[in-house]
């Protein structure tokens, strides 16, 4: 469904993504794991059609990423990106104006479950509330592929549970979910596949259940194994 073929992205003086080849299939929830700066966000942005690869190609349903694929691929950035003047209600209207697959009913349901009021100004939201709003707006789309970049960043444990529940509500057989994070333990119970990105390169794709039953290793331990030689800010 989503195929990355030898994808490389170079910025001035840095290779952010280096020859990544992999394939994502529908009906799975993927974790994209790797330390900060490993290239997860850059790859997602390319798959979302926000930036173009320096070389290689990402294809969705056999077609190169384009304006049309944005109708089927929903991307959520880790940073807040809504306009300052918006309210929670305005965010819904904005998505409804631009995405045919956006359901205002589902959005209303999700923000109600997240205890968000429509009249609330976006700029007044705490980081936890903002994370919930971003996920609610993204998951209210009936997209084929959801890519969520660090959806659990900077939010407390209870908010994490709410966000993860909201994400899981949208998972079904025909959809692909890709969640990037470095909070491996948080994702372990919800994902069934894990993609490792190490030093901008593809470092393997693993079936989480197979890791547990066949290799007798948790996803977190596999992560430690793969990245043990990577500089992770003093943590070895």
């Amino acid at each position, binding site marked *: 469904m989503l195929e990355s073929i030898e994808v490389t992205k170079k*910025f001035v003086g840095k290779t952010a993504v280096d020859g990544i080849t992999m394939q994502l299939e529908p009906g799975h929830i993927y974790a994209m794991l790797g330390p900060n700066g490993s290239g997860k966000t850059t790859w997602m*942005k390319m798959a979302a*059609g926000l*930036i173009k690869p320096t070389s290689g190609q990402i294809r969705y349903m056999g077609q190169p990423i384009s*304006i049309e694929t944005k109708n089927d691929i929903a991307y959520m950035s880790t940073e807040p990106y809504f*306009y300052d*003047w918006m309210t929670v209600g305005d965010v819904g209207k*904005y998505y409804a*104006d*631009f995405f045919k697959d956006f359901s205002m009913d589902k959005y209303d349901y999700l923000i109600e479950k997240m205890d968000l009021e429509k009249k609330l100004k976006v700029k007044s939201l705490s980081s936890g509330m903002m994370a919930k709003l971003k996920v609610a707006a993204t998951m209210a789309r009936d997209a084929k592929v959801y890519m969520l970049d660090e959806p659990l960043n900077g939010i407390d444990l209870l908010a994490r549970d709410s966000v993860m529940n909201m994400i899981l509500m949208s998972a079904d057989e025909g959809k692909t979910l890709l969640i990037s994070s470095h909070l491996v333990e948080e994702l372990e119970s919800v994902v069934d596949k894990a993609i490792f990105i190490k030093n901008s390169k593809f470092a393997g794709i693993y079936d989480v259940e197979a890791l547990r039953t066949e290799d007798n290793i948790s996803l977190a331990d596999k992560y430690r194994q793969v990245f043990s030689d990577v500089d992770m800010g003093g943590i070895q």
Partner: protein
Amino acid sequence: MGNLIKYEFRKTWMIKAIILVFTAIFEVLFLAGTFSKNEDMLGTGIGFLMLTTFGALFIIGVYGIFRLHKDITTKQSYMLFMTPHNSYTILGAKLIENAGSILLTGVFYMVLALIDITILTAYSGEIEQAIAFINEILGEHYSIDTYRFIMISFDMIAVWIFNIVTGFFAVTISASVLNGKKGSGIISFIMYLVITGFIEKLHNFVMDCFTSADMIGFTTGRMVYNLIYYIGFTVIMYVITAWVMDNKLSV
């Protein structure tokens, strides 16, 4: 594209509302001065209305450039680029909203000026005599009447819109090709000055080559040439900027 234009307008309506409030205040001052024959009040009203006219056109244009800069250099860029629209449509919406606002603002102040002059001449015959006297001094080629006033205003608006789209180009270059490089802001500003300067020189050169002695001062042909020239280069700069945005910008 309609939705993009709608949200572009939503981003800029506050500044336009503020300009309108100031215009209303100075118009009241002008009318009060006219009806009460208070020359100080009248002069102040006229002065500030003229200042507001040029200020409004300047602020709306520059604010459009500022908005584009913000929309491509901050995380708010996702709001535009995650939508299923290409850079040509996104930039086109910005240009239509901004150029449309400038045009409407220009027309609004043109009409206001014509109404105010009519009111003023109705209340003071001296003003009519003064305008006739000034036109006599200027001579046939440079004298101003309603038709010439409107044509010259449209000409100035077309030049200004070209300057704005060149500003769009400069901030896009700064955020894409020059992104992360030292002095990108200054380099792109110099590019803006060079491009606008060159286009003006080229305009004058073409004018000198084809202007005959009887085309000195105001002629309709000259005004039409100016409009076509600057609208043409506005379109060219728009296409180049959208191409750069599409191929070189990383949001």
